[in-house]
């Protein structure tokens, strides 16, 4: 009999089905260096992400880390974590980082960047942090044209506190604090803060991306590459919104949430550059 065992060597793991064996070998073979097509960049620690399965934060973290690594600017980059799901971002990025009070990441980023103007500085914030409690800091940081990158992950809900309504929650969308769906009459409208930011003369590159498909992941990565490059050239504020999902609080499977994102979020929060060099400004 063609007997093969799993790496654990546990006799109970003995497999006899040929198809299963082939699949297992295929899985094991990616552990061999010559078969590696992806590895953890040095700019990520080996801590396991606490993010829920299917959440876009993990991919977004990885993209930023990859870009920092590829540009070889680990020693020149400082990040600011928000209050929200990404509050522990500093566990994952292997770079100098701090953690800001709720909504104040861009003010903290301003303080760091003004004192260390030659370093790369980025803030990483969610919709509640950046577009509700921190709206003032967001707008004024962009209006001063602070030469930083603001990463804005928008999933239309407060994730960490358990699914409350966010400034970006869509009309009719249910949350624990809009249990009958967001009603514009009493709760106002979903805020397209990225479009607002693009009207400010001191912003340089304002774009909306997503990480729900491989193609979108590749486009988002290009946006991060550009933003760090523009920061190097001291062009002013770069602002990247990542429209993301929240399977746990949307109460969907990851696949369902990506479909829902495609059909609902992306029809309201349209992807693409809102303000970019060479593109006519949103003004």
């Amino acid at each position, binding site marked *: 009999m063609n007997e093969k065992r799993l790496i654990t060597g546990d006799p109970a793991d003995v497999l006899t089905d040929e198809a299963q064996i082939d699949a297992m070998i295929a899985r094991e073979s990616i552990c061999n260096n010559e078969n590696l097509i992806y590895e953890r960049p040095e700019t990520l620690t080996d801590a396991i992400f606490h993010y829920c399965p299917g959440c876009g934060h993990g991919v977004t973290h990885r993209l930023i880390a990859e870009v920092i690594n590829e540009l070889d600017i680990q020693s020149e980059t400082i990040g600011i974590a928000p209050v929200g799901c990404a509050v522990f971002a*500093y566990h994952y990025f292997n770079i100098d*980082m*701090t953690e*800001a*009070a709720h909504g104040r990441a861009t003010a903290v980023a*301003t303080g760091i960047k003004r004192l260390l103007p030659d370093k790369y500085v980025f803030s990483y914030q969610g919709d509640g942090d950046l577009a509700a409690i921190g709206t*003032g*800091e967001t707008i004024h940081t962009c209006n001063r044209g602070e030469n930083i990158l603001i990463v804005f992950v928008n999933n239309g809900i407060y994730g960490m506190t358990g699914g409350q309504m966010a400034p970006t929650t869509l009309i009719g969308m249910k949350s624990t604090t809009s249990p009958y769906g967001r009603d514009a009459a009493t709760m106002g409208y979903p805020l397209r803060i990225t479009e607002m930011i693009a009207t400010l003369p001191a912003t340089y590159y304002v774009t909306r991306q997503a990480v729900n498909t491989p193609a979108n992941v590749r486009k988002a990565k290009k946006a991060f590459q550009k933003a760090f490059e523009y920061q190097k050239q001291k062009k002013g504020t770069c602002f990247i919104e990542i429209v993301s999902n929240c399977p746990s609080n949307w109460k969907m499977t990851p696949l369902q949430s990506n479909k829902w994102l495609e059909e609902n979020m992306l029809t309201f929060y349209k992807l693409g550059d809102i303000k970019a060099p060479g593109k006519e400004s949103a003004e």
Partner: protein
Amino acid sequence: MSEMKLMKGNEAMAEAAIRCGCDAYFGYPITPQSEVLEYLALYGEKRTGMVVLQAESEVAVINMVYGGACTGKRVMTSSSSPGVSLMQEGISYIATAELPCLLVNVNRGGPGLGTIQPAQGDYFQAVKGGGHGDYKLIVLAPSTVQEMVDHVKLGFELAFKWKNPIMILSDGSLGQMMEKVELYDEIPRKTEVESWALTGKPKTRERNVITSLFIDPKEMEEVNIRLQKKYREIEKEEIRYASYNCEDADYVLVAFGLVARICKKAAQLAAEKGIKIGVFRPITLYPFPYQALSDLSEKVKGMLVIEMNAGQMVEDVRLAVNGKVKVEFHGRMGGMVPSPEEILENIEEKLLGGKA
């Protein structure tokens, strides 16, 4: 060379910041301290290249201070009572993350929007922790324009010695009045890099993380224990106070800041009437000179605490004295300043039981 000048308190403090090699000042206009931001906007960047930034709010200011302090440089702000209230969340974060910085409160009358006149109603906020959780600021209380200048230098030294936010608790009168000051020589801006600062992680060291978040209660308690240990050491090493004619006094006036100067005048008026009054002035409000006041209470018949508030420091004086002698209180509020004559009347009424 040091230099003598006639200067307004707020401007003298701004000049002191430049001469201390302050790397960044973040501010927001509020009466009666806007001259600090104005003076630095005029001269700061021009003379030393320091960062001077007018933010959109005091909330933004304190978080810029947090960010600036993360880089290990000399960072400061100043404001007045309502503005300092807005900063309290950020101050709690800064104290927990153990970041050095200098904060100034040019105290005005309150509560609420209050008045722009001088007051001392922010004693509790400054000394007992106006923000959430168990943290302490080292609080310096200048009583002259000269001390406002000196405390800027001392404040930066203490901030880096203890990795702790320092607050200068001044008031609207000290900020606005002009006095002769001796200005010290300019100290160059900081070039040395702090090992804990965020500067970008080189290959040669682990990444630096500055946070006030410790989600595991065991770890959070350890942070608290470490902070409390630091505060006990500060209480041993950093107590400062001044006393005037306390050696052979029958009674003592206790006051901080500007009020202590008015008390001196009241003590002189009392001396003319043959009443022996000393004046005790805490210079550090935290750490508070409990022992010195306790010792003093063994030698006098009573104490009268004078403040421009409804009675705040008097609680600490009573804790220090612990019932050994009577501790009376007289306060003015809402921006009113007590006069020497008024204090003398209170000495006669509250300590001597009637006119001498």
